[in-house]
């Protein structure tokens, strides 16, 4: 067992009164030690919910109905008691959020917030903890850590706060770091710095990353493996290189075509027609069918998840023949 995180058949339902709507449907993925794994998809594809489910931070109206999430081959996170779960959070798995502006408590100085993580998981002396915090802030590229420790969040810029968040997330050397759109709220130059920093540090700390993003550029820069999510399902799963050179699912090709590039100035930017169906609109069959250029009669029934090549799977009827031959 060398996978840090193993998600099997995970389904999440939205409970609205007596009705339930599936929002995440039958997801499988496995993240290996020191691997950087990306989940990419549009807004509402269920990628953030998947990350929250790992931490067991789902809102009350969302329920995990099926499946398992196993950490490090031994801890089953979906069935864990709250007390044990608290030991895992921050220590084995930690998380970076999208909005560095609001992710720090406005009433406490930075020092207090970093030490809170340490105090919770270790029993060091205050001096030791403070030294660790200073050390960590230096590692995330903050030049005057002693002074920054005394500052309040509103005195720092967005990039600085995200660095502090990264310091807090990595200070316990977690096995897995979940980054939910960590750079979306930052401007492009800072974005590149933060991604580099995450790359470097996770290398040092032997931490795996689960990167949740809508930005294919971030995936290329950061990840080794990637899953494409659409309307609560994984539609394609492979290595980053294969995804870009040989996208299999029509949705993936659509996504790749909608990325801006410097070359073709004459053409207007491609966008996939239609929108993601909401959980309440979903029908049986392939969820992308209504927007798909290759739609066929068979798409009325749910496509199987097929292995279409070495280390490359997709959920589409286009490849069904090969799938049958392989079987």
């Amino acid at each position, binding site marked *: 067992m060398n996978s840090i995180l193993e998600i099997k058949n995970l389904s999440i339902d939205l409970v609205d009164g007596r009705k339930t709507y599936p929002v995440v449907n039958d997801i499988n993925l496995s993240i290996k030690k020191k691997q950087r794994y990306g989940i990419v998809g549009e807004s509402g594809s269920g990628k953030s919910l998947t990350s929250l489910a790992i931490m067991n931070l789902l809102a009350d109206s969302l329920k995990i109905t099926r499946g398992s999430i196993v950490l490090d081959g031994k801890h089953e996170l979906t069935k864990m008691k709250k007390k044990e779960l608290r030991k895992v959070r921050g220590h084995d798995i930690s998380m970076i959020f999208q909005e560095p502006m*609001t992710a720090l408590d*406005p009433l406490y100085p930075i020092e207090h917030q970093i030490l809170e993580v340490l105090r919770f998981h270790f029993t060091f002396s205050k001096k030791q903890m403070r030294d660790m915090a200073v050390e960590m802030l230096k590692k995330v590229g903050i030049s005057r850590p002693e002074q920054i420790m005394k500052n309040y969040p509103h005195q720092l810029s967005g990039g600085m706060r995200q660095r502090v968040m990264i310091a*807090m997330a990595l200070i316990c050397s977690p096995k897995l770091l979940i980054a939910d759109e960590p750079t979306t709220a930052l401007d492009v130059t800072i974005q590149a710095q933060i991604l580099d920093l995450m790359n470097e540090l996770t290398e040092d700390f032997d931490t795996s990353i689960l990167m949740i993003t809508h930005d294919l550029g971030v995936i290329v820069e950061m990840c080794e493996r990637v899953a494409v999510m659409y309307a609560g399902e994984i539609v394609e799963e492979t290595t980053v290189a294969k995804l870009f050179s040989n996208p299999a699912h029509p949705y993936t090709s659509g996504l790749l075509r909608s990325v801006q590039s410097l070359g073709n100035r004459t053409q207007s930017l491609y966008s996939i027609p239609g929108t993601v169906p909401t959980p309440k609109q979903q029908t049986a069959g392939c969820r992308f069918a209504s927007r798909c250029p290759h739609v066929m009669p068979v798409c009325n029934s749910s496509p199987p998840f097929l292995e279409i090549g070495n280390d490359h799977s997709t959920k589409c009827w286009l490849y069904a023949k090969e799938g049958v031959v392989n079987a």
Partner: protein
Amino acid sequence: MKEFFVKLSHDKVGIMGFTGIFLVVIIGLFSPWIAPYSPEKMFTSHVMEGPSSQFLFGTDEFGRDILSRIILGTQVSLKVGLISVGIGASMGLLFGLISGYFQGKVDSIIMRVMDVLFAFPDILLALAIVAVLGPSLSNTMIAIGIVFTPVFTRTVRAAVISVKESEYITSAVAIGVSPVKIIMKHITPNILAPFIVQISLALSGAILTEAALSFLGLGIQPPNPSWGGMLDASRTYMEFAPWTILFPAAAIVFTIFCFNLFGDSLRDILDPKMRKS
């Protein structure tokens, strides 16, 4: 804290309110020494006399000095105000935190009870509670405290629900902080602003309710001096001895006015929308 006083110093209305409250508090604290006579001493040869150099605010139907009674009444009013708001605020904070943080069934139960309490007019509810417990100083404070609990519960609950959705609370949970610590260290400090404003406004309400209860004969019992009680006693003589009712009424109006001015300016200062960072 420093920032708070700097902002207050720019708000003239707020300073007026603050100065007034300061004055009332000083009078309340040192009332036995400030009052020219004992509030219970009867000058039998000076019954119902108008304001004079000997009795600045005149005397009442027993020949007691009205000024001294008002000064001693300040102490009672402030005591009732502070303690009853203290009771109401701490119960409201407790219920509001539980209700807002855990939501679900607990929330429904607590909030329905509060709705029932809310459905009664303040004075009627206070009267009912005093009628059950019996009229006395401490029962008056308990009754007013219960009357003020629902307002605090609602204020706190609403603030908790909005703070709870903030990302820094989610990230505290993600770090592994326990619910108790999250409530104590992250939620409570972040809801203090609306809570403090509510306290300053409730203080004036509590003083007014105490005056009303005493006026109705169910609050502070005579011969102890209280503003509401003085109004009640002088009701029958107000046509030919207006000073017996005028000065206690002025004391009530002045105190309430100062608390309201201060409360309003406090709300403006603590409002995050008005804050420049």
